[in-house]
């Protein structure tokens, strides 16, 4: 479902150039649960941005569901993000002035339109039916992350991308989030790529890709 061919990413740093990814080749199948691990500065986040179509590679090819997306315009990339990608961020990234329900509905705003029933179902799926009218500030960290997961679920994306989803959570909330994600995988066969330092998350994954200095060092299954 995902194919990365010789992906490189170079950032200009003044006169010098910083090569963050050096010829990455990965294949990810439909329904796989993949962890990307590696020390800081290894290129994990850059890779996640590329996978999420937030950024374009300097060279190489990225096929998402057999369509090459590496060199699309920003408008087309936005459309792909809207329809195919569900992001889950370390810092949740909810809009603080919106209720949980409205935050979930925001996930549908730019793709086909808001469907309140589906938003409520998504919140039920992450166990927040009682918290629909609460604003992020009235929710615990774990609950906020679950709202963010519901926001991703609601548009039924082809690919879930999670960036340190438990990084800001205590271990109990972290466990809850992990179990929601693994359940989603088990029940619906979602494809999930998660960037993490957390060995606990990695242990739930089918594949672990280790990055170092912009290269894949090892892959375990």
């Amino acid at each position: 479902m995902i194919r990365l061919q010789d992906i490189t990413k170079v950032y200009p740093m003044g006169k010098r150039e910083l090569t963050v990814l050096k010829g990455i080749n990965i294949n990810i199948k439909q329904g796989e649960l993949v962890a990307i691990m590696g020390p800081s500065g290894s290129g994990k986040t850059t890779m996640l941005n590329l996978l999420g179509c937030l950024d374009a590679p300097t060279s190489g090819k990225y096929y998402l569901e057999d369509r090459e997306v590496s060199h699309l315009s920003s408008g087309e990339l936005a459309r792909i993000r809207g329809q195919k990608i569900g992001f889950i961020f370390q810092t949740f990234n909810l809009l603080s002035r919106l209720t949980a329900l409205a935050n979930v509905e925001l996930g549908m705003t730019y793709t086909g339109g808001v469907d309140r029933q589906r938003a409520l179902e998504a919140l039920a799926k992450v166990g927040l039916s009682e918290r629909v009218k609460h604003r992020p500030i009235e929710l615990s960290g774990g609950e906020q992350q679950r709202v963010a997961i519901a926001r991703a679920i609601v548009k039924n994306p082809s690919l879930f991308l999670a960036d340190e989803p438990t990084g800001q959570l205590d271990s109990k909330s972290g466990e809850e989030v992990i179990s929601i994600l693994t359940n989603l995988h088990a029940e619906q066969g979602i494809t999930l790529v998660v960037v993490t330092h957390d060995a606990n998350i990695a242990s739930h994954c089918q594949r672990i890709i280790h990055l170092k200095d912009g290269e894949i060092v090892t892959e375990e299954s």
Partner: protein
Amino acid sequence: MKKWLNFFNTVWLGLSTHKLRSSLTILGVVIGVAAVISLMSVGRGAQASILSNIESMGSDLIIIRPGAFTFGGIRGGTSQTLTMEDAEAIAEQVSNVSLVAPSYSSNLQVVVGSENMNSSITGVTPEYWEVQNLVITSGTFFYEGEYQRGSKVAVIGSNVAETLFGTADPVGQRMRMGGIIATVIGVLESEGGGMPGMSSDDAIYIPLTAMQQAVAQPRTPQGEKVVSTIALTTTDDENWEQTVDDTTALLRDRHRLGPGVDDDFNIMSTQEISEMISSTTETMTLLLGAIAAIALLVGGIGVMNIMLVSVLERTREIGIRKALGARERDIWSQFLIEAALLTFTGGIIGVIIGWGISYIIDSMGVMETLVTLDIVILAVSVSIGIGLFFGFYPAWNASRLNPIEALRSE
């Protein structure tokens, strides 16, 4: 439909989060629009009142005065070039002329009992009433008989009646002026408004024949009796320009003015006067509007300022929206509509307040004001335009944000 509802929900959220800030931004536009509406309504009101005054003089009137006309409305000299004989010649020789009314005015002390006032007395012929569209409220005009006999009778304006006679009925009362004592036989209907001294409300009319007994009416070296104004009406509204030309030619001939010599009189039709006044007052209205538009411009800059702050503040929100699939166009229109909605709301409130101010000015009797639809449409569309114009840059800025960096911002 649902999509639009959604869209406006988004915009409303943006605005309602900072209610005070949004209100203050709107206030800037409100003040600008209210200033435009009220100032332009003053201009339009002045125009309407002057034009209705001229209208009341009769729309097909041509007025000839002695002296050369200098542009800007200042008449040069006190030359006494127009005569009774000129008036008679016009009546006989110029086609299209229906009535000719020569008159001679002089300032005299008017005494009634213990009251006295300095007033302009005008000696007129009986044609004068019809030429000037005058209407009587009590008593009667004087006609050909009184004129021929030189009867000492007077028709007075409403202000004069009030000043000299108060609430008493002036008809039948006697008033001393210059060398004669005249009996009031009629009081004119008030014209209202108008420029002091030029309205018939302040006038006293006696037969021109009686005038010659009250004051010594000057004569030209040729022995013709001098008049101060000749007013005439045309039989045909359409051809007033031809009538003006014919009359000019006749007078130049009678006054023996060779080619290249300036007219020693000035001739103007009410049409010409109203066209001139219309264009002058329109310029004044636009000038007032332009001054007020500066306030509107300042309001617009306020909108831009706030939108820039708002974009900066919501960088992270923009990043989130982009990650969720918002295109540049979605972000761009969100902020642009936000700005336009601010100024549109300001425009509407401004129109209501401006309208209110102009109503108050009008009802206090300070000045006549007139709010016309074109002013309202202009002010509201300019306010929306300002929102779009000043909202464009901040909105464009927002749409161009890199989603990765935007997501990382605090």
